[in-house]
C-alpha cells in the first residue's frame, strides 16, 4: 500500500512517512530498539506546559559523564517514549526520586550489574492517567505504565549516552530495562499506601524509584498460615545468588490475596517486614558451600574465605544460632506494597540494590500551578 490511508475517524495517515520517520530515529540511535513517537516543538511545548519548572532546570546530573538532563530533555524523551503530556508531572517526580535514591547519579546505569529503575506510583494520579495496579501488573497493556517507564530508559540512552556495549556495560540486562513502572493497588490493600508510610497524604500522588535486578514470583496459592507464607517469601529474599554484599534488600510486592491473609491474622505492614527480616536467614554452611562465606576487604562483597582478598564475615549469631546469618540488615530493608489482581495467591520479590535500612525515595507529584 502506498500513499495516505484514512482511518474511520478521518485521521489521515501516511505509512511511508511513518516508516521514514522511524528509520530516521533508528539511524541516529535515538531509540531502545522499538519505534518512537516523532516529536515537534509544538508537541514538546504541551509537555512543558504541564510543569511550572524552568525548561533549563537540571533534573539529574552525571558529572562522571559530563552530562545533565534538563526538564526540556526529560520532556522530549517522555514524548519520544509515547507519554501523553499529562503524564509529564509523574515523569518529573520519577527523576526527582531517582536523584533522592542517588544510585543513578553515581553511575549504576553504567554498571555491569545491569539494573533497571523501577517506578512505583501512588495516589489519585494512578486513575487520572490510567496506570495499571491490578491484573498483569509488571506486564504489558497499559500506555501510562509502558511509556512513563520507557521515558527513563530513552533519556538514559539519548541524554546520557548510555547505550549497550558502550557506556552501558551491563553484563546481563534485565527485562525491566525497556520499561518498569507499576502502581500500587491501594484499593485492594488492607494497609495504608506506600507514600503515606513516608509522610505524604493519601490525597497526594507520589513516585518511588528503586533500583531492581530480578523479579521473582512466589507461588503460594494454598497458603493459610501467615508464618508459613512469610517463610516462603523470606526464602526467596535469602537466596545465596542474590547476595552480592553482606546483606541484600528487596521489595515484596504482595498480591491482594496474600496481603489480606496477613491482615486477617492481625499483621500490619510493619509486622510483615519484621517477619520477613526474622525469617530471611542463610546458614554459614550454605554460604561456605557456594563460596560466599567471607567478605572482600575492599568492597565487602561476598566471596570465598580462600580468596586472596578475603576477611572473615563476623555477623553476629541470630537468636543464639551461630550457624545462621541474616540476609537483611533491618526490617526496613524490605519494602512492602500491594499490587496485582485478587484472583490467586501470588506475590513477587523484586531484588533491589537498596535501601538497606534507609527510607525509600518517595517524591510527591507536582502539578503545574499546584
Amino acid at each position, binding site marked *: 500500500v502506498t500513499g495516505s490511508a484514512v482511518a474511520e475517524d478521518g485521521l489521515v495517515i501516511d505509512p511511508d512517512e511513518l516508516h521514514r520517520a522511524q528509520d530516521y530515529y533508528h539511524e541516529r540511535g535515538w531509540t531502545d530498539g522499538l519505534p518512537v513517537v516523532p516529536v515537534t516543538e509544538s508537541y514538546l511545548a504541551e509537555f512543558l506546559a504541564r510543569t511550572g519548572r524552568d525548561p533549563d532546570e537540571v533534573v539529574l546530573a552525571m558529572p*562522571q*559523564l*559530563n*552530562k545533565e538532563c534538563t526538564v526540556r530533555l526529560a520532556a522530549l524523551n517522555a514524548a519520544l517514549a509515547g507519554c501523553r503530556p499529562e503524564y509529564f508531572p509523574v515523569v518529573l517526580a520519577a527523576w526527582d526520586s531517582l536523584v533522592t535514591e542517588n544510585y543513578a547519579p553515581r553511575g549504576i546505569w553504567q554498571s555491569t550489574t545491569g539494573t533497571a529503575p523501577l517506578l512505583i506510583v501512588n495516589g489519585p494520579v494512578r486513575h487520572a492517567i490510567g496506570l495499571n495496579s491490578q491484573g498483569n501488573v509488571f506486564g504489558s497493556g497499559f500506555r501510562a505504565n509502558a511509556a512513563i517507564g520507557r521515558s527513563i530508559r530513552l533519556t538514559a540512552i539519548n541524554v546520557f*549516552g548510555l547505550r549497550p556495549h558502550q*557506556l552501558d556495560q551491563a553484563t546481563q540486562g534485565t527485562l525491566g530495562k525497556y520499561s518498569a513502572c507499576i502502581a500500587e493497588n491501594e484499593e485492594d490493600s488492607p494497609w495504608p499506601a506506600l507514600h503515606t508510610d513516608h509522610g505524604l497524604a493519601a490525597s497526594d500522588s507520589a513516585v518511588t524509584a528503586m533500583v531492581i535486578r530480578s523479579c521473582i514470583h512466589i507461588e503460594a496459592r494454598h497458603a493459610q498460615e501467615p508464618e508459613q507464607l512469610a517463610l516462603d517469601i523470606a526464602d526467596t529474599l535469602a537466596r545465596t545468588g542474590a547476595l552480592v554484599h553482606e546483606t541484600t534488600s528487596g521489595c515484596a510486592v504482595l498480591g491482594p490475596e496474600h496481603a489480606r491473609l496477613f491482615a486477617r491474622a492481625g499483621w500490619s505492614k510493619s509486622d510483615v517486614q519484621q517477619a520477613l527480616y526474622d525469617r530471611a536467614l542463610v546458614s554459614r554452611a550454605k554460604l561456605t558451600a557456594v563460596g560466599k562465606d567471607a567478605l572482600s576487604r575492599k568492597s565487602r562483597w561476598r566471596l570465598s574465605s580462600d580468596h*586472596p582478598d578475603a576477611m572473615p564475615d563476623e555477623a553476629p549469631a541470630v537468636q543464639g544460632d551461630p550457624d545462621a546469618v541474616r540476609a537483611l540488615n533491618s526490617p526496613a530493608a524490605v519494602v512492602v506494597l500491594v499490587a496485582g489482581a485478587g484472583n490467586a495467591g501470588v506475590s513477587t520479590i523484586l531484588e533491589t540494590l537498596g535501601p538497606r535500612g534507609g527510607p525509600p525515595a518517595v517524591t510527591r507529584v507536582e502539578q503545574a500551578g499546584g
Partner: protein
Amino acid sequence: MAKVQGFPGYAFATVPHPVASLDAEQLRDAARGVLPEVLTILGVQQ
C-alpha cells in the same frame, strides 16, 4: 569515558576478564602481562 570527559586520545591499558576470581599468583601474572603497555604509555620505554 575518555571521549565524554573531553580527552578522546587518552591512552589506557586493559587487562582481560576475569579479574575478581583470580588468585594472588594469577593476579601477579596479569599485572606482569600488562606492564610493558603501561611503561609505553608512561613514556618509560618505546
